[in-house]
């Protein structure tokens, strides 16, 4: 019996892998175990960069499909899977969880969750993924619950109500584990919610702290809201933040103010909407903030992934934060204190002529009826960027030459109803602009917007650009072999040379990609996985 067990452990591709819980220490050093993918962005610095290099610029052309897992959902997958010791965990929209054999795509178990009828999500019942600590998975749901699930058998361990879904709160973000807490933010910026980021005890699910993204009467920042407008001021946080363990700060992007297009109903800068906030993960205390778009009128959520980089800046080593914002500007901040270091547009921008010395936009409001660049969906959005410490380049999925005409209409807040204050319409009457709706037919064509992967150096200067006909919602993965993996709405998954943007490999996946790729290693073989259409695809080299 002992011999039998020992043999199985020696076999490559054994049916079970050694069970090692995902401790906080492993999360701290996630980049050092590139065979796994332990957090939403792969590591706390959110670079979505892997040290794996078996697949390289020479052999990537022989990358082949190893398996496909078809999702039992017609909703758009935005999930970024986790991989732990040979097991892949992914969410199936809206809120099912699936554990797969990462070698074969065969399922171990499926946790099915039926959200309460009547949940409200503006833009699709999506979910971006899971967090793991120990042997427990954590998922936020569209009806605003946080659920802990046993990673071994898919059984729910606890279920905490985070917020009231009937007034428009939802959770689409992949949670972030820091120490013994599960941290997440809410969605609901189109329903006039008051946004927040909160932490929950990993064992019990009880709330540890809550940071309201909109200050209340008597709190600092309330002076940036006119009258009672803060009460329905929005400020959701629906993309996973980052963490610097040395500074003990977690960074989260905050979404649009409410109503989206009703700036006249909320005079002031509207803190902390369209900002990045740096919080103490133990207490939720605000350490600093930087607001990208004060008094937003374009729905420029700042819910991008904060990318943490340590590099020389003006000749001295600094702790940096790179941020390609939905508003069209690329920013570099000092993440110790939020100091603005530099910023430039990375696509066509006409709502501001530039940034002042403090990083505040120098606004150039466009006349009524005239197109605003970038348009409502922004220059980029939740799509995960990547930073490679080898090329020292920051990579972002961008919408280029894209605009909207903004139409304002007063909105009255009614609980649980859309609170928009107007709408965004295409600049050409009768034509479709690229929008959040993804269809197999590109009927806007490049005349109304196109896509690109843009490589920026740390000053924000473009180094290269790979242009696509359709806009892209896909995230980006880079590897130590200088490969860049991404895709887009056109239904292709492809690899670029991260040094120059040249296409090295391309595979049809038959449906749009609105998720970010991950990579992992099993039995000495590197895999790359991506959710596309309504399936999860895994590729590896032919051996």
């Amino acid at each position: 019996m002992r011999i039998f067990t020992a043999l199985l452990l020696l076999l490559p591709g054994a049916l079970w892998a050694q069970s090692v819980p995902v401790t906080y220490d492993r999360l701290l050093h996630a980049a050092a175990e590139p065979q796994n993918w332990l957090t939403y962005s792969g590591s706390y610095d959110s670079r979505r960069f892997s040290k794996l290099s078996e697949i390289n610029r020479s052999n990537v052309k022989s990358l082949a499909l190893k398996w496909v897992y078809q999702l039992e959902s017609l909703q758009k997958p935005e999930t970024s899977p986790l991989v732990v010791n040979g097991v892949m965990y992914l969410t199936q929209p809206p809120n099912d969880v699936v554990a797969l054999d990462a070698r074969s795509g065969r399922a171990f178990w499926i946790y099915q969750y039926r959200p309460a009828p009547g949940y409200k999500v503006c833009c699709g019942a999506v979910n971006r993924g899971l967090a793991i600590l120990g042997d427990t998975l954590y998922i936020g749901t569209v009806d605003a619950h946080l659920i802990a699930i046993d990673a071994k058998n898919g059984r729910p361990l606890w279920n905490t109500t985070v917020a009231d879904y009937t007034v428009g709160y939802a959770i689409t973000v992949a949670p972030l584990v820091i120490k013994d807490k599960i941290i997440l933010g809410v969605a609901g910026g189109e329903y006039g919610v008051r946004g927040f980021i909160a932490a929950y005890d990993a064992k019990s699910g009880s709330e540890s702290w809550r940071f309201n993204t909109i200050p209340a009467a008597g709190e600092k920042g309330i002076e940036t809201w006119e009258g009672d407008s803060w009460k329905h001021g929005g400020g959701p946080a629906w993309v996973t933040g980052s963490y610097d363990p040395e500074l003990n700060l977690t960074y989260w992007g905050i979404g649009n103010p409410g109503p989206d297009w009703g700036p006249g109903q909320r005079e002031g800068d509207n803190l902390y909407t369209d900002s990045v906030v740096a919080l103490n993960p133990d207490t939720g205390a605000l350490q600093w903030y930087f607001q990208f778009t004060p008094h937003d009128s374009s729905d420029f959520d700042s819910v991008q992934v904060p990318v943490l980089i340590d590099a020389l800046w003006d000749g001295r080593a600094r702790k940096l934060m790179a941020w390609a914002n939905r508003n069209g500007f690329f920013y570099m901040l000092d993440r110790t204190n939020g100091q603005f270091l530099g910023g430039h547009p990375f696509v066509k921008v006409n709502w501001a002529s530039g940034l002042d010395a403090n990083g505040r936009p120098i606004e150039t409001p466009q006349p009524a009826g005239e197109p605003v660049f970038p348009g409502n969906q922004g220059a980029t959005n939740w799509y995960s960027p990547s930073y490679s410490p080898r090329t020292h380049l920051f990579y972002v999925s961008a919408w280029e030459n894209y605009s909207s005409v903004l139409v304002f209409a007063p909105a009255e807040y009614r609980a649980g109803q859309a609170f928009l204050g107007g709408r965004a319409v295409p600049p050409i009457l009768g034509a479709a602009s690229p929008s959040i709706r993804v269809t197999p037919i590109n009927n806007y064509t490049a005349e109304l917007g196109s896509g690109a992967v843009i490589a920026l150096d740390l000053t924000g200067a473009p180094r290269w650009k790979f242009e696509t006909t359709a806009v892209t919602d896909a995230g980006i993965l880079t590897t130590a072999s200088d490969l860049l993996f991404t895709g887009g709405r056109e239904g292709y998954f492809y690899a670029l040379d991260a040094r120059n943007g040249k296409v090295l490999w391309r595979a049809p996946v038959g449906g749009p990609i609105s998720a970010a790729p991950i990579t992992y290693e099993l039995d000495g073989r590197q895999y790359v996985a991506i959710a596309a259409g309504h399936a999860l695809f895994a590729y590896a080299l032919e051996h």
Partner: protein
Amino acid sequence: MRKIVCCLALLGVLSALQAAEEHVGTYAEIDIERGARIYFSGCVLCHGPNGDAVPQVQLRSNHFRHAVSDEDLMHVITSGIPGTGMPANNLDGTDQNGIVAFIRNMDQRLSDTTSAGDATRGKLLFEGKGGCLGCHRVNGVGSRTAPDLSEIGLMRTAQALMQKLREPQSLILPINRSIRAVTRNGTVITGRRLNEDTWSVQLIDSKENLVGLQKADLRQYTVLKTTSMPAYKDVLSEAEIADLAGYLLSLKGQN
């Protein structure tokens, strides 16, 4: 006699001036069109073609029992009204926007026949002197090389149709642009673009073949900025253009 090359790209030809006017305080044409399709395929069963079939509700004049704002309308559409025949509808945000946009513009859509002429005379022009069937198709008759016009009456106002007939060159919906491709062996393919991505394009060619091309296989690929549809101000009188518009307005689909 000049042969009329009739690529009446009515779906695609738009007035920039009108675009500027209609944007301020109004709704996206694409939303109105989407809403019209949804309305006439579902809502019409209870609310009727004029939006007045439910007592105390006049959709066309925007007289509602349970709604004032657009947000109210979306709520009624998605949640229904308990105790009445109004059901909850499982529609995504784009479709909700569409229905609201159509309802807000319903009266204009249905009543904007002031400047349009006689539909019967217009049909004769469409099928005869105008030569429109040479490129367009209506209810299964005519060419497929230009957009099908069987539902154009749901999508365009009389004013917009007449402007497009007079000046088709003014603006073309980007997707409807003609393309010209030359393969490596010199074969020239022309047609109307149906879909495009970075590496391929799908089109209907001048012989109504559905053709898919890989751009890497082409020696030349050009998206034409002009339309081959004639400017009817040079071909038809203003009265005839009005009649033609009247006919087009009457086209609201067979279903």
